[in-house]
Each structure stands twice: as structure tokens, then as C-alpha cells.
């Protein structure tokens, strides 16, 4: 760990490595998030059966599963620090920006891992391979980026409230509605055979806006 409190790449890398290591020691957050995602996926698949030709339902179900998996797990990165009483120490050794970027990267990685398991399983169970892989993966990547950006900032705020995790889903959801709307409509367009250009642009713009405002606000996150 660098002790200069800088927000340099080294500090970000150190925060990310520390996150991964402490997650890997117990893996309970990852395991429970994966189990949750697979459970909700199974419930959905079991309830509706194969839907290979229903682009609208497919897109909605995929993003609902991903959204819920994210809402159930992404507050963890900050709540863990507060509950373990380690946030003060972390703040001593790293700048708020480094912490925020490190946690954001960790959340992205976390979401990526969930998707690596859930998405292929979803495509398999529903019997619906995407007609255009670049568009599909692009939507998935940009959607995850926006999801992680919103979740990281809200997680940092929510970890300082009473009841910690309890408010996370409720507070994140309004911010994630644009992501949900654009991602579902883009994924649907992609399955229906059209190019989801407008949606990709919307997701990219929204993710950029979220990251920019996060960068501006990060210094106000912890003061006491």
C-alpha cells in the first residue's frame, strides 16, 4: 500500500488489489451474488420456459436478472468497510478519488464475474443466441459500466446511513432507470435484428455523465 495518500494509478491499483484479496479470503459476497443471480435466472426460466422468439420478453428478463443481482450485491464494497471499521484506516492511506476508483473497478469486476456466469446460462436456457455479438456485448459492457458507476457512488453514500444496505436498492433504482430503459430497448432491438445505435449512445452518455459527477462529488463523500 502506498502511504502518500495520492490518487495515482498505484494507489488505485492497491485499493483494487486489497478489495479483491479481502473478497477472495471469504468469497461470501461473490458466492451469494452468484447464487442469487442463478436462482433468479432459474426462477424466471422455470416460470416462462423457452422464449427464443420473444425479443421483448427476453431483453426485459435478462436485464431484470442482472439489475437485481447488482442491487443485491454492489453496496457490499463500502458497507463492508464501515461494518468492519476499516474505512478510517483506508482513508488515511488513500485519497477519496483512489478509493472511489478502486471500488468502482472492483464493482465492475464483480459485475463482470456475475455476467460471465449468468449471461451464457441465460442464453442457453432461453435458447436465444444473440444475432450480433458485438452489439450484444457492447450493450452489456456499457450497461454494466453505468450500473457500477451509479452503484459505487450510492453505495458510498448509503454505507453511512442507519440500516446501511437496506436503502441501497431503493436509492439506486431511480438512478438506474435510464440504464434499464436504454439497455432493455437496445437488447430488444438487437434480438429483433436492428442495430441498437441510439441505445448504445445513450448508455455511453449516461455512464460518462455519472462518472463525471462522481469525480466532482467524491471529495465531499467522507468528512467526519
Amino acid at each position: 500500500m502506498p502511504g502518500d495518500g495520492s490518487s495515482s494509478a498505484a494507489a488505485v491499483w492497491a485499493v483494487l488489489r486489497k478489495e479483491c484479496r479481502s473478497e477472495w479470503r471469504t468469497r461470501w459476497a461473490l458466492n451469494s451474488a452468484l447464487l442469487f443471480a442463478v436462482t433468479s435466472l432459474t426462477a424466471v426460466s422455470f416460470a416462462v420456459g423457452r422464449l427464443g422468439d420473444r425479443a421483448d420478453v427476453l431483453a426485459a428478463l435478462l436485464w431484470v436478472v442482472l439489475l437485481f443481482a447488482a442491487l443485491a450485491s454492489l453496496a457490499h464494497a463500502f458497507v463492508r468497510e464501515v461494518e468492519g471499521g476499516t474505512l478510517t484506516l483506508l482513508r488515511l492511506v488513500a485519497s477519496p478519488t483512489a478509493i472511489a476508483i478502486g471500488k468502482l473497478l472492483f464493482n465492475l469486476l464483480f459485475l463482470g464475474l456475475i455476467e460471465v456466469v449468468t449471461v451464457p446460462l441465460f442464453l442457453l436456457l432461453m435458447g436465444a443466441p444473440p444475432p450480433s455479438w458485438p452489439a450484444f456485448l457492447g450493450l452489456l459492457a456499457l450497461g454494466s459500466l453505468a450500473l457500477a458507476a451509479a452503484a459505487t457512488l450510492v453505495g458510498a453514500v448509503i454505507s453511512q446511513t442507519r440500516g446501511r444496505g437496506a436503502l441501497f436498492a431503493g436509492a439506486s433504482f431511480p438512478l438506474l432507470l435510464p440504464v434499464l430503459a436504454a439497455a432493455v430497448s437496445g437488447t430488444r432491438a438487437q434480438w429483433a435484428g436492428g442495430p441498437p445505435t441510439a441505445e448504445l449512445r445513450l448508455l455511453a452518455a449516461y455512464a460518462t455523465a455519472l462518472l463525471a459527477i462522481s469525480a466532482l462529488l467524491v471529495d465531499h463523500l467522507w468528512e467526519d
Partner: protein
Amino acid sequence: MIWRGLLLVWMAAGILAAFLWAPLVPVLGETTRVLYFHIPTAWVTVLALGWSMVHSLLYLRRRDFEHDHHAAAAAEIGLLYCIAATVSGAIWAKAMWGSYWNWDPRETSIFFLLLLYGAYLALRGAIEDPERRARLAAIYSAVAFVAVPFLIFVVPRIYFSLHPDPIINPRGKVDMDPRIRLVFSSMLLGFTGLFLWMLSLRVRVARVERRRFIES
């Protein structure tokens, strides 16, 4: 005092004119009258949100609790107006479109505002320390500030909407009957005045609460 009395007379006259004097639009029929209540409340919903967000940003910059009082008060009153706009819109939708709720883009964006107000106030309720509450609520408000344009302006442009747009669409404005326009703009003004009055009351209460907190 004089302003309060004036507001009372103004609103009463507006309501009477809306029901008795203003003419009806052919297709809309009796539902025309929702125009004088639904659009002003929707306008105040957005105004209150903007008010709350601007004061949140100012709070982060200046750390003056006066801004926090304004941000919180505007959000509380905005929620009230948001509910009024949503309910009046849903009733109108039932009369004109045949169902209370259909996820029309306009319905989506007002519902989103409802969620946002709710989340903001729930967040405030979950933090005890006033300084921390003000700061974290302001941060949340600033993030929401980024999300709002996407849902209010971008999403309704992408998806097809049945919602009539007498304010944004200039053709509708030209077609508006002069009497409708008069009642409509006075109600717009009246509701804005009502909002400002409620806001000043709530801010004054917040100041008293703050003073008592410091004394205790």
C-alpha cells in the same frame, strides 16, 4: 399577509373560471379542465426538484444550512405536487386512453420523479447527524441532477408518446383559445405562488428546528 390573501382570492377565482368560464376543447370534452390543475402541478413538481437540486449544490459549495433547509423543504413539497400531478394524470388517462396506467413515456418520467423524491426523503430520514444528512442528501441530489435530463427529456423523445404537449409544442399554443390560455396561465402562476408560500413556511419551520437542535 397581503400576499396570502391575494393568493387565496387568485386561486379561488382561477378554480371558478376553470369550471365555469373556460370553454371546452372538442375532442377532450369535460376533461379539458384537468389542464388547469394537472399541468401546473407537474410544472411545480419540476420547479421544486430544480429548486432542491440547486440548493443542494449550493450547500456542497458553501456549507450553509439555509441551503439545506431549502433543499429539504422543496423536496417535501415537490413530492406532494408530484403525487397530485401523477394522480390527476392517471385519472385523465383513464378518461381519454381507457386505462389509468400504461407506461407512456410521460407517465414513466413522472413516476421516476416520484421514486426520486421518495428515495431522497428516505435517505434524509435514515441519517441522524444534521451535517452528515445535509451533505449526503446533497450528494444524492447532485447525482440525480444528472439522471433527470435523461428521463425527462431524452427517453420521451426516443419512445412514442400519446401525451398532448400544449406547452412544448408551439402549434398547440397558437390553437389555444384565449380564454383557456388566460385561465391556464393564471393557474400556472397561482400554483407557483402556492408552492413559494408553502416553501417559505416549511423553511421557517426548519430554521426553528435547527435552532432548537443547536440549543439542546
